[in-house]
């Protein structure tokens, strides 16, 4: 069986009493697009910086294809975009890309594709980076992360400063990488983005892994939203229905996965004219997992 592109085994990073990551175990499948979620300070960037060899683990291992990330050879097949990318400001975008491509020694077969897709023109690339807007720097950082056609792309908050149009193009870029069999590991605060482009989600809180599963399966962890319409005043409460709220003729609430009793009770309630059950969004799941202390 092929080694996973990313494997964290008991990965721990502490600075004195402060914990960045604690005993993190995580395997990322080849060819997957994994969203890495967590609140501010949860340990996302620390994990990523351990994976790209910038930080040294206190304990455990960060492995890329079973090679410690601190080994240069492990990073030969990786493209990385930091949360706050910084380039040589006096050099043009193209010179910066040339430099980084040379350091990776794999050429830049996907540079034009990525630059075109993200809307960075040849003229833009000829300008000094010091003249770039924040969004352009972000695009340049994305191009440098993928230009050498890496097998694993690690992105830390990649769409932070992108406008909606560029954001769409970024999602298209991720799909193209996935389509050619590349593995993508991205951290994000934008849950809709993760829902749109990722097939797997890993969630961390206080440096520990909360959940790691396919996006659809993760949504199953959270309660579904229920909306019941009545032709009379709805009941104030239904057994098993969480967070009931009555607004006019509408009763809303939430039901746990595989708990059909509240739905049966609702269906048996006189005056019910319509009932909708919506799957939980990733946001619901995120808030629920974070909120209940699991």
């Amino acid at each position, binding site marked *: 069986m092929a080694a996973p592109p990313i494997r964290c085994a008991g990965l721990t990073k502490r600075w004195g009493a402060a914990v960045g990551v604690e005993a993190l175990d995580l395997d990322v499948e080849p060819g997957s697009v994994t969203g890495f979620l967590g609140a501010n300070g949860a340990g996302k960037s620390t994990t990523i910086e351990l994976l790209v060899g910038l930080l040294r683990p206190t304990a455990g291992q960060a492995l890329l294809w079973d090679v410690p990330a601190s080994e240069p050879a492990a*990073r030969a097949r990786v493209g990385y975009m*930091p949360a706050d990318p910084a*380039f*040589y400001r006096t050099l043009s975008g193209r010179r910066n890309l040339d430099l980084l491509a040379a350091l990776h020694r794999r050429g830049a077969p996907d540079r034009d594709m990525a630059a075109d897709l993200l809307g960075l023109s040849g003229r833009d690339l000829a300008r000094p980076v010091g003249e770039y807007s924040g969004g352009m720097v972000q695009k340049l950082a994305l191009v440098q992360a993928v230009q050498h056609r890496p097998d694993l792309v690690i992105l830390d908050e990649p769409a932070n400063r992108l406008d909606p149009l560029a954001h769409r193009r970024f999602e298209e870029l991720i799909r193209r990488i996935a389509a050619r069999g590349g593995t993508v590991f991205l951290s994000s605060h934008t849950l809709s983005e993760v829902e749109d482009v990722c097939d797997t989600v890993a969630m961390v809180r206080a440096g520990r892994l909360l959940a790691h599963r396919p996006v659809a399966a993760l949504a199953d962890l959270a309660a579904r939203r229920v909306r019941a319409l009545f032709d009379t005043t709805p009941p104030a409460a239904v057994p098993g229905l969480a967070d009931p709220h009555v607004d006019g003729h509408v009763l809303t609430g939430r039901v746990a996965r595989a708990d059909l009793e509240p739905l049966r009770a609702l269906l048996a309630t006189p005056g019910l004219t319509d009932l909708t059950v919506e799957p939980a969004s990733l946001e619901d799941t995120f808030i629920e997992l974070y909120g209940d202390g699991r």
Partner: protein
Amino acid sequence: MRPFVEAELRARARMIAGLATGAFTYLLVLALTYHSIGVVALGNAFGKDTPRIFTAFSGSRSTDVLSPHGWMGLGFNHPMLMITSLTAALAIGTGSVAGEVDSGRAQLLFTAPIARARFLGAALVVWAVAEVVILLAALGGAVFGGVLSPDLRHAGLASLAWAPLQLLPLTAFVAAVGVVASAYADTRGRALGLAVTLVVAAYLVSVVAGLSSALDPLRWATPFGYYDPGAAITRGLRPWPFLALTGAAVVLLLVARRRLARRDLA
């Protein structure tokens, strides 16, 4: 690593050009002043009792600081040229690790599939190129000024080349101090503060050591004590101080390399 070296040199081109211009101008002016302020007359007035403050600043115990070559030796040890030549060493040395972390570029550079130590090697190449440019400019200023000065021209200009060559290992040592400070410090500011404090203290110790015979042995406790441009100009390159400073710089670089391999870069 050639693209990295080129990028670093481009990024520092203005600094290097400025320092080289300063070094050229300073040595040119110094050479011209030998005649214009009448240093020969000054020497005659002092006789054999040249004030020790002159010799202390010249960094030379064995040459007549008021002779044409001794005067140029003083120029190559003057705080003005020291600042000019050591600024590049300190800027590039302290920028090699902490500077890249501070600027955020470490996130892109040190994640490339390249051993961290190679970035130190590349920083040394950047320093070497910058320093050679600055010292050649200083030599150019000294020679040009010497051509225009009858006393210096008569004393001979070819031997002036030994002074910047003798200075090179001192700047290497200072660059290595900067690299070590950079490898240990969290920020470039701290690295620079630490390195500058050490270098200034070492320079002051060497000057103080020159003020009295009793304090003279102190000179060997500072890297500046191993640099005697006046002796280099009058008697040629002094190999053992050259090798001592180079060896010390290598030891410091090995310490920095060891630290760099283990430290966090974010």
